[in-house]
């Protein structure tokens, strides 16, 4: 479903360049959930943003569903992959009502005014329909993250890119959101890439985990590895240790 080869991202100009992602390659098959862990600043988000098309400066190749996509995406390419961001407070426009936020993707794609789909979308993520007339600040973090997920799903993308979708949330609410994501994945046969620094979340959600350090993948762990606590690199060992103290 997703194939990435030799992805390189460099920030900054010649004199002060910052090589953030260094030639990573990976593939994700349809319906699979891939996790990426790593310490802060190692380039996880950058990989995800490059996949989504939010980053302009990458080199290498990215293909969705066998088709190569470029740096500037067409509407059809955008429909293939949507993203959910880390901060539920920042990912909804503070002056758009929830209904508007959910209708916007459809309007932006030029597919009608979108209001018809709002109720359904809200129900799918377990929110009451009357929330459509609320503003984001009238919602809790978890509820916002649900809206963000609903918004990402409203265009029915086969791929969902999740950048630490729960790290700003409480454990209890995190559980709700993780359950919701798992349900949606099952229902729609979604392909996930989930980025997090929390190994326990990753191992709960993912079939396979890539461990990232300084812009490269240093380890790859399967679900079984995680359960057994098996690691193949010293860095992932350290990470594993620290996560479950």
């Amino acid at each position: 479903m997703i194939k990435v080869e030799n992805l390189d991202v460099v920030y900054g100009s010649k004199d002060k360049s910052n090589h953030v992602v260094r030639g990573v390659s990976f593939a994700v098959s349809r319906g699979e959930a891939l996790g990426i862990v790593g310490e802060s600043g190692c380039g996880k988000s950058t990989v995800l943003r490059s996949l989504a098309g939010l980053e302009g400066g990458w080199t290498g190749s990215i293909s969705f569903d066998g088709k190569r996509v470029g740096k500037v995406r067409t509407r059809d390419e955008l429909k293939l992959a949507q993203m959910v961001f880390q901060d539920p407070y920042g990912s909804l426009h503070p002056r758009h009502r929830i209904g508007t936020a959910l209708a916007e993707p459809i309007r932006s794609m030029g597919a009608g005014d979108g209001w018809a789909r709002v109720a359904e979308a809200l129900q799918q993520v377990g929110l009451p329909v009357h929330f459509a007339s609320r503003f984001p600040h009238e919602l809790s973090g978890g509820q916002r993250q649900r809206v963000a997920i609903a918004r990402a799903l409203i265009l029915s993308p086969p791929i969902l890119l999740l950048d630490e979708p729960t790290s700003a949330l409480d454990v209890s609410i995190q559980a709700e959101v993780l359950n919701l994501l798992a349900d949606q994945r099952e229902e729609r046969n979604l392909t996930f890439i989930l980025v997090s620094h929390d190994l326990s979340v990753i191992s709960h959600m993912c079939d396979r985990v890539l461990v990232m350090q300084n812009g490269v993948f240093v380890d790859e762990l399967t679900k079984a590895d995680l359960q057994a606590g098996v690691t193949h690199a010293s860095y992932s060992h350290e990470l594993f240790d620290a996560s479950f103290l």
Partner: protein
Amino acid sequence: MSNIVQDDAIIQPPAIGTRIWNSTSRILRKLADEPLGMVGFIILAILVVVAIFAPWIAPYDPAAQTLGDALQPPSLAHLAGTDEFGRDIFSRLVYGTRITIQTVLSVSVIVGPIGLVIGVVAGFFGGRTDAILMRATDIVLSFPSLILALAFAAALGAGLGTAIVAISLTAWPPIARLARAEALVVRNADYVAAARLYGASPMRILFLYIAPMCIPSVIVRLTLNMAGIILTAASLGFLGLGAQPPLPEWGAMISSGRKFMLDYWWVAVMPGVAILLTSLAFNIAGDTLRDLLDPRHARS
């Protein structure tokens, strides 16, 4: 929370009227906690009322000269005295509110959108667009503003209209900078990234996502600017380049009244007090609005 409410109500965006009503009443409620701010808004409200009903409030024609009655001190017949042409100063002050409000509103209506659009476009598109627009802004900003206004008044001929254009010409850069700063923050917000992801066009993002976020601070800034506009207009009036006689522009009134300051204090003091009160009211109102609307200044 996860239980799904079966709600088949048809979802409609709420009417614009309700929205405006809601936010105004919210602001009004907050205002109640700010006595000083309340005073500012009340003064402004009075000013607007006076401007609208000027013909009913003013006891005399503001331009009617009675040379025999020149320079009478305040009395029951002339609440604020008369000027050197025997005109009733109170009536002139009352009519002057119209000029003041007209000036302030015209400048704001010109400057607000221009500043907003320039700032937002610069902030959002960044790169070369930003560099060019900001260079222009810097240059206008580094112009001595009163001098530019003077030059402009000299070029177009003195008059209220010229004064408005001249003030507008130098009043937009701070707004543009503010809007840009705001836009720079907003454009990096996740909801803008999300909008790009679902294919919103740059124009859509600019006007539906970024501009609305910049409007409150622009409004606050405009309100604060209004005091400055009044003072600049008064300075132009003082230099004889603002509203032309017999228009009862306050600055011009001071300007001609200052010739009598030592012996007939009311001729210059009355309009001075009017300007002071009005610009004070605008300043207080702007300050309060900022406290209310701008999260950075809000009480934690």
